[in-house]
């Protein structure tokens, strides 16, 4: 009997201790984040390196703020440090390289970038790499036969022999939350022509920002060139406004309502005042009599 009891207690002890071990393992969960790395060549020839740090937790995705992401470029296999940027409230860390910042290319003409997140107790470390060739684009806007036309010329800065062909490019107009696509085209021999046919509202003078953008191309990354021109509809021709004149729902009432109310109130309270005056006079009469 005693033996059985001892075995029983040993089994229970093992069972309980195993539970503790499991619990500890659970407590030590480390989140595996992802750090997307993308590059955009802007119209002013600066280059943005964009990362977004995020990981999946029980409730959904978390975008940690104020974590350091380090950017490097690779020169013949060696990491050269660029800068360290802290993530913003949506987990993104962006580094902009000046237009005249020269990144050396490898033998194939690619610039290699690296973004690294060191990690901490709860989030694992991660890094991403991207390789892109440099591209220079210019946009020419003109009206040919009363059709608004955009011509984009692209030249590869990696090697003079590379011709830009069979690369998709889109034409957009900048809007409040995103960019509105208005046309697209395909590069052929380093140039593409797109027609701007849509009627898009602009500001007071009809200005809109037109953007020609190659989106996430495998070789060149994202490259864009933009221009502000007056190809939009001026605001006075299209703007919808919430009327600020007196309506039922405005803070100040329509005039006729105010006037009607005043007339009615004066009419009624005037009679009240008259009656009260009569009462006062009655009282005075009584006093004089006695």
């Amino acid at each position: 009997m005693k033996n059985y009891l001892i075995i029983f207690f040993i089994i229970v002890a093992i069972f309980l201790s195993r539970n503790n071990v499991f619990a500890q393992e659970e407590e030590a969960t480390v989140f595996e984040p992802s750090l997307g790395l993308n590059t955009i060549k802007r119209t002013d020839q600066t280059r943005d390196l964009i990362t977004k740090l995020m990981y999946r937790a029980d409730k959904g995705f978390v975008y940690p703020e104020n974590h350091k992401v380090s950017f490097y470029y690779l020169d013949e296999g060696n990491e050269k440090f660029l800068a360290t940027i802290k993530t913003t409230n949506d987990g993104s860390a962006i580094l902009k390289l000046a237009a005249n910042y020269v990144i050396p290319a490898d033998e194939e003409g690619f610039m290699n970038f690296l973004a690294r997140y060191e990690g901490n107790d709860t989030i694992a470390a991660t890094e991403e790499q991207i390789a892109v060739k440099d591209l220079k684009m210019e946009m020419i806007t003109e009206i040919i036969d009363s059709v608004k036309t955009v011509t984009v010329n692209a030249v590869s800065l990696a090697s003079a022999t590379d011709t830009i062909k069979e690369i998709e490019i889109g034409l957009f107009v900048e809007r409040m939350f995103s960019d509105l696509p208005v046309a697209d085209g395909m590069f052929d021999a380093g140039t593409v022509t797109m027609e701007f046919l849509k009627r898009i509202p602009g500001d007071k003078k009809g200005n809109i920002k037109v953007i020609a953008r190659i989106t996430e191309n495998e070789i060149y990354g994202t490259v864009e060139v933009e221009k502000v021109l007056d190809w939009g509809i001026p605001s006075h021709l299209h703007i919808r406004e919430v009327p600020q004149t007196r309506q039922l729902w405005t803070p100040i009432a329509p005039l006729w309502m105010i006037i009607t109310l005043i007339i009615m109130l004066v009419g009624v309270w005037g009679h009240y005042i008259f009656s009260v005056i009569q009462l006062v006079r009655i009282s005075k009469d009584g006093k004089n009599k006695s």
Partner: protein
Amino acid sequence: MTREGIDFVRWVAPQIEQTRRKEYIWFAFLISVVLLAIYTFITQEVKGHIVTGMRDNVVWGIYIVNFIFFMGVSYAGAIVSGSLHLFEASWRKPVVRIAEFTTVFSLLIGPVFILLCIGRLDRLPYIAFFGRIQSPIVWDVIAITTDIFGCLIYLYLALLRDFAFLRDNPHLKVPKWKKKFYRVLSLNYKDTPEQRIKLDLSMNIMSAMVIAIAIIVYSVLAWIFSVTLQPGWHSTIFGPYFVIAAVFSGVAVMILIMWIYRKVYHLEELFQEKHFVNMGVVLLVLAALFGYFTFSEYLTKWYGSEKNDEQLIKLLFSRYYWEFVLSNYAGVLYPLIVVGLKRFRTINNITFAALLVVISLWINRYLIVIPTLESPYFPIQDTRPEWVHYLGTWVEWTLTAGGVAMFALLFSIGAKFFPIVQVTKMHDEYEDIERVEYEKEREF
């Protein structure tokens, strides 16, 4: 004043002088109900309106029904007393004071119910500071304030002669403070011709005003509902419909009060059958008008069978079937039969008809407010029963009882200070009648 005068007062308004034991019990009962209501009110303010049956769809419940009902009763009083004064009907005299009291006291109770419906009572002054005159609620606030002042002035004008009468009577056995009260309020009225002229002029003006105000104010209340787009409320005849229903309910309440005072103070000679019959005839006419308006409303909705109107009518005839039949059929037909057929035209029958009318009209208001909110444009797709259908909770019923008790309390207290009959005018009439009879005897 002669001894006959004091006997007259003691006969018609004995409660001014003496307080019987029954009255003490009555007052104690009323005050306890009111205290219970105050406790309930505090519960509601502390816990929030979740203790009522109101939810996001039916946001207005029993409080608004009570508000409409009491305001209706008050406007009826105003119209009845105003028109009786203007038309100088001879039978009117005992009834007029009761009408005036009903007007003022229910006008003081009604707005209390609307205040119970407001989520943030601490911000009530905002209506005065930030009021938007495009809002029907602001119209209503302005209108009710105007109405309260008007009715108070009117009541005061009506009471002035009685105050003087009571002040001058040396045999009146009341404590000194009450005597002083009458002296101050009587404003040195000595019934001189100049004073008489001024008083009559004011009374004429105010009685006309009071009628006009009552109609306007109650229409404004109706417009709070009819300017919204809710099916069942968005009706063009709501203004006149509410006014008719108001006068109808008010006349019924007045008949009830007349009957109570007649019974309790043995005033059979004062409130004679002819008074009940005449009020009954008014009740009959109003019942016919009310029935006509109600029929017109529902016929239009039913025949046109617009989708949301149809949904509302279906709701009325399924969930609220017996309430609908009671209020719109029984409440209309019973007074018509009882007063219309001479055989049934007794005091008790007419009073019972009045009681039925009061209940019917309260239910009618309930059926106007709540079923509409239970059948909105977007279907209520919810599983919580109290969010789908409205059911009044103990909080709301207790506060309703408190409101009724408060009304009765105000009325009873008022009767102890102000005679419930126009003593001076009645006395004039009796003096005239006596003089005529005396002269007749002398001729023999």
